[in-house]
């Protein structure tokens, strides 16, 4: 058993990361997550093996967007992101715009929520309460007010949490509460910056 596990780990390391990433980028349907945080695979490996992995990752950070994405992820692959792949012909299009303005277009299945979708695709969205509508960390802004109106009204609980969100807008929602339906095909959501862009004045006046 241990031998096979070790073999598997070796094999994983043998596959060049860059090519895996390219496949990932080239595939239009990114509902399957290819990313694995490097340290998640190395649980049983010996320190020197891990070290080579770490070095490789350090290099890959500079190799462009896909690679950065791959290396990011401390998000739970096991705990979250358990999304269902859409059946052919039933894909729903959803686009995320991250805080740097990058667009990520995804095809997803009906019934998944935006938090799970984002985390399964390694987008920078936190779900501190695990998607139970008890925090405001998965705040998203719906770009098109018409689509916002098509959505179900946020519950009192959701609105209570949105009240605490930074940068609240008229079309804000919690990602964990937006469940994809066919009516929401073409949904575009923006992820607000989680961290504040502080100005010099922010700390000088204190």
């Amino acid at each position, binding site marked *: 058993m241990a031998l096979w596990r070790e073999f598997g780990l070796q094999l994983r390391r043998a596959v060049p990361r860059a090519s895996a990433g390219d496949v990932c980028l080239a595939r239009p349907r990114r509902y399957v997550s290819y990313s694995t*945080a490097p340290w998640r695979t190395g649980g049983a490996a010996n320190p020197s093996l891990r070290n080579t992995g770490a070095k490789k990752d350090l290099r890959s950070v500079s190799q462009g967007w896909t690679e950065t994405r791959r290396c990011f992820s401390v998000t739970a692959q096991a705990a979250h992101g358990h999304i269902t792949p859409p059946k052919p012909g039933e894909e729903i299009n959803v686009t995320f715009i991250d805080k740097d303005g990058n667009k990520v277009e995804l095809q997803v299945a009906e019934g998944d929520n935006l938090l799970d979708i984002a985390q399964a695709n390694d987008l920078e969205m936190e779900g501190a309460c695990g998607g139970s509508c008890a925090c405001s960390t998965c705040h998203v802004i719906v770009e098109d007010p018409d689509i916002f109106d098509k959505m179900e009204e946020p519950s009192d609980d959701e609105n209570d949490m949105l009240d605490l969100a930074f940068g609240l807008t008229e079309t804000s929602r919690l990602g964990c509460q937006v469940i994809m339906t066919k009516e929401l095909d073409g949904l575009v959501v923006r992820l607000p910056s989680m961290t504040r862009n502080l100005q010099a004045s922010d700390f000088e006046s204190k």
Partner: protein
Amino acid sequence: MLEGAFVCAQCTTRLGQPSVLRSTQKLVLPYSVRRLSSHAAQVDRPVRVAIVGSGPAGFYAASRLLSKHQDAVVDMYEKLPVPFGLARYGVAPDHPEVKNCEDKFTEVATSPRFNFVGNIDLGNDLPLAALKPHYDAILFAYGASQDKELGIPGEKALRSVYSARAFVGWYNGLPEHRDLQPDLTSGEDAVIVGQGNVALDVARILLSDVDTLRRTDIADYAVETLSKSRIKRVRVVGRRGPLQVDIPTSHSQSIQASFTIKEIRELLQLPSVSFDPIPQDVLPPEEVINGLPRAQKRLMQLLAKGSANDPHTATKSWSLDFLLSPDSLHWSPMHPYRLMHTKFSRNELDPADRYSPSSKITPKYLSSGKRAMVNLPSSVFFRSVGYKSLPLPGLEDLGIEFDSRRGIIPNDGFGRVTSPSGLGESQELPDGSLITHLPGLYCAGWVKRGPTGVIASTMADAFTTADTLVKDLATKKDSQSLLEDPEQSSGLGWDGIKAEAASLGLRTTSWQDWQRIDAAERERGQRKGKIRDKFGRVEEMLEVIG
């Protein structure tokens, strides 16, 4: 030997040969530690970062750091044998969903680049300065360990007067407050001074049905005490008006954070608990409410609507009392240990500007010229006017000048520790002013911005600090060590300190130890039909791991 800690192969080899020692002249610290040969200038050793504190701030900083810097190794130090700080000991037991953040923290801890060192009280057990030679950066995220006092006569009484912080720690099984034994049987009236979420948590625990609480991870002894409680009436008293109560947002910078709408709604929905309507002259009229920003508007609407529970059939009740400042506590003349009432002085809002959040609050005077006072019956009294951070002993050895007035480590807002007196490297800001950073030292969470805000605010704040640290590491190309010049950091982290700690007789806990304690707590809980049954004493925790 390394117990799962991530150390590069080179370090591992070097660990085995601690023969090359530096000249002692190189030691600049009063705390003399014999150090191993430094190889900091070589780029292939990991960047070692110490995080002091294992609450949400520490873990979110660690998470961000490990994900943004693939070569960083984090050692997290914790005073208790168990992690998670206020997520474990502050979040109310009936809010299990808020504790879900622990799942994320647990995942962070599975990283081989993460190392938990529990049961070590830095500054007391081990001098802080002992860390410095072995780390490239130190990040303080140890939160706020004290609460603010009111400064009124009788506050220090041993019975019937409690700090909400201690009460919260007590029902959450925090070893420090295991023996609080609050007296909830001497009467029916509880008064809580302060209108933050901690005050509302205390109110909710006092008003909740004990059988609902029994299934949570609340401490057993607390359930027992609460089941005997005679409290029927809870007053949550604040010195301001409803509109002057700040609504904390996830980026709130205000010092006096107050309740959030979720907590109010929960209290209003408690079965067989009624809510005293807020007097008409205190609550703003409808047309004012409708013109308020969204969050305030919804809160005011909720307060105006009140509870659907009929006060005649309800068994318990609560109220939010505004514009009252505590003056003194009064005991029964017959029974000197029995608290009778709390005397409050009345405040009033600026009549010209009653409904503005910045309306001035002034003491109210009677026509006779005397202060308007009111007595509220109190059989138990809680103060809940905020937490405060204390300096860790030995911060000054690292050059940190703790700001006791604001209860924070002085910082630039990004998380870099600054020196108000200007010792260190000065840097000019875009606006022309000078700021002095203490290189390699960072802070996050409540010790950085004051004890305010929800977990989301701490997360954003910890991310900012971690991003700053990563940025600083990237700009420092010639060496990895931010803390000292590269010659002086061994980069060994905890591995360089543990011999010292062991010689002091310290028994630290690892993440594996916590997992065993965790499993034991869950198992104990399962037998009692609850999520978890926490160990209330440090000795009990240590017994589990043998």
